[in-house]
């Protein structure tokens, strides 16, 4: 086991910061190259004319999932050292709803708003400021909403643990769904393009 490099100390504190920055830049660059800094392209997601967001995100999930599985299986990565966020059912449902409304209204999500702002788009800057204001407001209101915030805790849930089926089967199903969906979206986009 040599990974996560940050956990096993081979990177050092400065190395962690530098590599984190590099990964962040790469993430932003990939989002930009995928055209996701453009609110119009993102809105195509909702009227089913451009499913780039879906494809980018789903291929990222599939890549990370296969990578983590095989790195762990080959003894390179220790998955017990990889942080797994806890599930808080109701607060996260509420958060998801707020996020969805904001995404649909602004046409940008947190990552893409930073990308849009970095490429000089005014709407990106506005959404980024709004996002930071939301983070501050949540922090300030936390004492008042603490009970709800920490309610319906389910611990660190994963699909294999929740469903009681092996990780490999979940991976096969998710990859199968992704590849089918990619084929399907190509057809949807072709049809949308021909209508236009």
């Amino acid at each position: 086991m040599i990974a996560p490099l940050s956990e096993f100390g081979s990177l050092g504190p400065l190395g962690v910061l530098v590599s984190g920055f590099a990964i962040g830049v790469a993430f932003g660059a990939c989002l930009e190259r995928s055209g996701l800094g453009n609110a119009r392209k993102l809105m195509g997601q909702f009227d089913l004319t451009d499913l780039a967001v879906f494809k980018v995100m789903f291929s990222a999930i599939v890549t990370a999932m296969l990578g983590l599985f095989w790195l762990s299986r080959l003894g390179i990565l220790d998955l017990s050292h990889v942080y797994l966020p806890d599930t808080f059912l109701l607060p996260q449902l509420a958060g998801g709803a707020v996020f969805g409304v904001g995404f649909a209204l602004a046409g940008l999500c947190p990552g893409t708003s930073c990308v849009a702002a970095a490429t000089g788009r005014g709407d990106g800057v506005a959404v980024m400021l709004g996002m930071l204001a939301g983070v501050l407001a949540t922090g300030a209101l936390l004492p008042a909403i603490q009970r709800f915030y920490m309610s319906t805790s389910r611990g660190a849930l994963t699909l294999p643990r929740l469903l009681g089926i092996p990780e490999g089967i979940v991976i096969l199903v998710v990859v199968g769904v992704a590849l089918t969906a990619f084929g399907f979206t190509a057809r949807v986009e072709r049809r949308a393009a021909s209508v236009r």
Partner: protein
Amino acid sequence: MKMLMPKRLLAAVAAVLALLAAATGSSRRVPEAMIDAKQLAGEIQREDDHVTALELAQWIRDRKPGLRVLDVRTDSEFAAFHVPSAERMPLESLVTLRPAAGETLVIYSEGGTHAAQGWVLLRSRGHEHVYFLRGGLLDWMDDVMSPTVQSTSDSASAHVASLSRYFGGVPRVGVAPSAPAAHATATRDTATAAAAVARLRRRGC
């Protein structure tokens, strides 16, 4: 033939990796230890987790099929004295042990703690027919090597006395184990072994 497009190639790679993942099952190389805490707790409560020194002595004398006696103490302690037929097995090796079918494992340590912890480790890896010696080698010294029996006439006492003599022990009749007279009757071998274990007694485990 049309060459595979990069997109198709990537999709094919993902599909192959996913199929292999499904065949592999788990991302862990070592199977996860599954502790059924409730079941283990029940076994402990019912005292199905251990054997007494006399039970172990009986098993060894009867040459119980598949019996393996494992000593988890250090090399030097093992060299000083060990239960006859025991093999030395440090806890680190114990956790990777794969008992053959039909084997019964009895783990012992000085006072029983390390052996009991070894029992949990082995049971959590799904091995059944695992026991530890209650009271450890200290109980073995007291109950097998120098037991105190009520009299020589009743059958229970006679049984204990015969077991003890089988292992070279010296049963005493109605005398407290710490009485000086008892030491006088002990053979020199037993006395040496008892002294070796008495030194351990202060440390426990």
